[in-house]
């Protein structure tokens, strides 16, 4: 029985017996009434939004690029699926690819759901089920995703449990659909991918909301404090505790212990990846080393005295790497036990002895509240013994190591970015480290080069040491994650966004698997900040945006305001804070346009797709979580652009601008089918270059609903950026001009001439929707 069926049956029972209207029971809980009526899809089952998914997927068809010709998921395989062959179970390649995409999305959604579960259980045990969800006087729509998907309005921490149980149950069903002999159609696999993405967003919102209200993070504060980020921001004269991962309780416990014992300032707490974001939201004295790709270089620098890991995106060899620099590891999550003995019930002092003496390289310790004491005591005690540890090779060592290179280039063939390593190593053998410094800027710190080197040259360490002049000065400022967007901000920008006068909202999200270095996203972001787009950021991408300075030594966060407004740069926080980016799009529909939000997914997604010019950029996306986050945005009608490595997600969702039929919408006023132009053209696309991405972003911000004034502004950027980066007028310009009034005034004659060459004629501007039920005229 689906949850919705259950919901409806009880509704009838309730009205029969109690004659109480407007009350509904779901899962034995009362769905409380508030000012909004309940929409059509509370707690949607896998198929409840299938119709919407199919509408999207008919327009944005997957282009599959299989990673492997085979399927090896059951013992009837391996099966060769090339050239239209089917496997022993009957599955074909498109279904197999979408099945793998679904598996990835399930892994991602499950990871966020488990993260939310750990966090929520911990916070409920510490602060109580009744701890209020109060985001302050400026945020009334506290949980836009949960309201939209589940139809509930959480008031206390305990209310989040209902939404989370729903997410967990649905993920199990989705995973079941990937079993041999279950789902067999690509379009339904893809619909399920969208469902996983939507669930993922619910989990994100639960997790971030819980930690914001319980741990006292900034509540949508545009002036959240600036904190330090970069290797040079870490004070080497003090003991250093490195926290890595995503789930904050252990890191927060370290901060608490230091504060309680008046030791803050005597010990450095430095974070990598999202735990770093969240610990700096908890206490802005914490420092951020950098994104996830900084793990190897920071551990190898020998600076961390203790490494505390929680969950997600932590290197599988971190214990090995930390042991090399004699830094003990404290594992704190059931998700990552690392083969270590469980010492949770042992006295702290005896564990400290074992870690400091080196008799144990690390331990599993599953009591977040006592991790602080353990980590700090260990760091203080081991610090004096670790002073002489220098893990990176010296200049002389560097030359000697480099001279062992025989130029085989196996390192380059293993390097995901195909970097010219051999040439740089050869130069280093002669004492010239400049080429190594170039590699440093683009290297993603994966270490694959070393694994393959027949001469056992520690290539990554050589690169890092060769670039020490750069990283010894890497010290920047980042604004800590502010969390949600305020309702009043939405009120201010809703109208200009929906009418197109603020040309777009651009979200830089995801990991740091960049093909060409992180500098590219700084350039992309600044191009749009200067043009008064709203730029938001989260996760590793938000960190990368901080890691460059202008001529006056300022990072983007120091140059641009943290307000959700034209020309603002908003760091929402960690990966789970992506919920506030989706939440902002939803709130535009709800607060500005006054659309019913509650359990009204399809209508809100249709609104966003057709009216809210938002685009996600996941330039270095690598994880399954990133896949799930992206999928949540697709279902919500927000297109996502990935960088070159992102194409390895195995398929893109591409529109065909040359297929006129794809781009008809209903005019909600008349019911007529009206050509709306390819806006947005794609739902998921990889860009081959920074230049292409920049122009693509401007294009994907256009929406059928843009007023002529708004479209003219958007077109002026699209044209200008196309000329600047691609050297020409966009060749599809005629598809985006509906009326002469859409043409930017300063470009009128040039554009008109182009339109003439294309046989262009004026078209109506619809009140656009893809849902026939939203047509008002009957």
């Amino acid at each position, binding site marked *: 029985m689906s949850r919705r069926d259950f919901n409806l049956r009880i509704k009838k029972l309730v009205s029969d017996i109690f004659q109480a209207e407007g009350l509904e029971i779901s899962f034995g809980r009362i769905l409380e009434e508030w000012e909004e009526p309940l929409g059509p899809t509370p707690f949607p089952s896998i198929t409840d939004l299938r119709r919407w998914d199919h509408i999207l997927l008919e327009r944005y068809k997957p282009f599959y690029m299989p990673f*492997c010709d085979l399927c090896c998921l059951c013992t009837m395989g391996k099966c060769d699926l090339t050239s239209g062959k089917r496997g022993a179970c009957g599955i074909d390649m498109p279904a197999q690819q979408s099945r793998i995409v679904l598996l990835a999305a399930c892994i991602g959604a499950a990871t966020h759901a488990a993260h939310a579960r750990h966090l929520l259980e911990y916070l409920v045990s510490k602060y109580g089920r009744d701890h209020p969800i109060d985001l302050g006087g400026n945020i009334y729509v506290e949980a836009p995703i949960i309201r939209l998907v589940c139809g509930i309005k959480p008031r206390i921490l305990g209310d989040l449990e209902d939404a989370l149980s729903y997410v967990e149950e649905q993920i199990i069903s989705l995973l079941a659909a990937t079993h041999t002999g279950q789902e067999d159609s690509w379009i339904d696999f893809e619909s399920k991918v969208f469902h996983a993405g939507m669930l993922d967003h619910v989990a994100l919102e639960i997790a971030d909301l819980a930690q914001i209200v319980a741990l006292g993070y900034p509540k949508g504060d545009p002036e959240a404090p600036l904190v330090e980020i970069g290797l040079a921001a870490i004070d080497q004269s003090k003991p250093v505790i490195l926290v890595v991962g995503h789930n904050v309780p252990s890191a927060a416990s370290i901060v608490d212990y230091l504060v309680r014992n008046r030791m803050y300032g005597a010990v450095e707490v430095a974070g990598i990846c999202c735990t770093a974001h969240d610990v700096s939201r908890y206490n802005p004295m914490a420092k951020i080393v950098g994104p996830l790709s900084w793990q190897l270089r920071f551990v190898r620098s020998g600076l961390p005295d203790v490494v505390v890991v929680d969950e997600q995106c932590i290197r599988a060899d971190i214990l090995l790497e930390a042991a090399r620099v004699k830094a003990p590891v404290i594992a704190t999550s059931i998700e990552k036990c690392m083969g270590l003995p469980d010492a949770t019930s042992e006295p702290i002092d005896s564990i400290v002895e074992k870690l400091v003496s080196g008799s144990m390289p690390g331990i599993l310790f599953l009591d977040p509240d006592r991790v602080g004491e353990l980590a700090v005591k260990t760091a203080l005690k081991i610090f004096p013994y670790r002073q002489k540890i220098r893990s990176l090779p010296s200049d002389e060592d560097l030359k000697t190591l480099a001279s062992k290179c025989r130029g085989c280039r196996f390192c380059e063939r293993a390097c995901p970015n195909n970097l010219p390593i051999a040439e740089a190593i050869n130069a280093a053998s002669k004492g010239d480290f400049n080429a190594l410094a170039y590699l440093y800027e683009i290297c993603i710190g994966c270490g694959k080069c070393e694994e393959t080197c027949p001469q056992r040259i520690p290539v990554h360490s050589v690169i890092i040491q060769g670039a020490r002049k750069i990283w010894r000065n890497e010290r920047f400022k980042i604004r800590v994650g502010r969390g949600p967007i305020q309702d009043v901000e939405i009120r201010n920008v809703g109208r200009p966004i929906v009418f197109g006068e603020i040309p777009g909202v651009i979200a830089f999200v995801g990991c740091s698997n960049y*093909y060409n270095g992180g500098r590219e996203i700084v350039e992309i972001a600044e191009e749009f900040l200067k043009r008064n787009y709203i730029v938001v950021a989260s996760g590793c991408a938000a960190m990368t945006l901080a890691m460059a300075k202008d001529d006056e030594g300022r990072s983007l966060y120091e140059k641009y305001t943290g307000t959700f407004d034209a020309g603002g740069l908003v760091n929402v926080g960690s990966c789970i804070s992506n919920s506030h980016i989706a939440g902002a799009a939803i709130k535009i529909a709800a607060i500005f346009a006054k659309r019913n939000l509650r359990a009204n997914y399809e209508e809100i997604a249709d609104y966003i797709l057709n009216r809210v010019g938002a685009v996600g950029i996941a330039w270095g996306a690598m994880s399954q979580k990133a896949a799930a986050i992206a999928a949540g945005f697709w279902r919500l009608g927000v297109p996502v652009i990935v960088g070159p490595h992102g194409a390895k997600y195995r398929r893109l969702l591409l529109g065909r601008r040359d297929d006129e039929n794809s781009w008809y919408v209903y005019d909600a006023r008349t019911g007529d089918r009206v050509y709306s132009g390819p806006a947005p053209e794609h739902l998921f696309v990889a860009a081959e270059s*920074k230049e292409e991405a920049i122009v693509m972003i401007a294009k994907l911000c256009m929406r059928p609903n843009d007023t002529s004034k708004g479209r003219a502004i958007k077109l002026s950027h699209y044209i200008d950026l196309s000329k600047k980066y691609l050297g*020409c007028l966009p*060749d599809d310009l005629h598809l985006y001009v509906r009326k002469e009034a859409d043409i930017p005034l300063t470009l009128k004659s040039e554009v008109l001439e182009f339109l003439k060459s294309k046989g262009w004629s004026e078209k109506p501007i619809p009140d656009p929707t893809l849902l026939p039920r939203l047509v008002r005229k009957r």
Partner: protein
Amino acid sequence: MSTYRFPEPWATAEIPGPRKAAIIPRPESLVAILRRANRRLLVAGSKALDRIEGVDTVELIRLLHSTKLFTIVASRNTAYRLEEVGIPTVASISVYELGDRLRDSSWTGFDGVGGYDLVGFIGFPYITLWLVLSGLKHFAPKISTISLDPYYHPHAYWSLPNVKGSEWYSFIKKVADSFGVM
């Protein structure tokens, strides 16, 4: 380099499966392949403006253009620069969008006349071309794809092997020469 002339992917781990590209052993073989085709498309990638293996890739594209065999398209960041140096392109298009059109058997090409039976690729990041060629191998089985980069691409129908820059240059030069290019 130990892998020259062997069908081994340049990126060591990019092993596809049972059907792998045939190596084009000699320039004459490529000449024969090109002569057999009716509608040939040459796609210049996002790295086509760079030196690849020490070779000026634009120079190789110019040689291929001079054969007058190809309709040329290029990645977005590349097309206008080719135009600037006198290599005309019929479209500037993302290689993924192009792949999406090529796998559509009803697509009538850039001139509206019909699809292409041979598509050559040059000037790409290895990972990008590897993926697009995979998409085409599976979903555009009637198209002969050729990797003209100096790296073996297993998902192509035909591919050059992993070769040194100098060998790459002379290979393409010989092909161009056989079509009477001076």
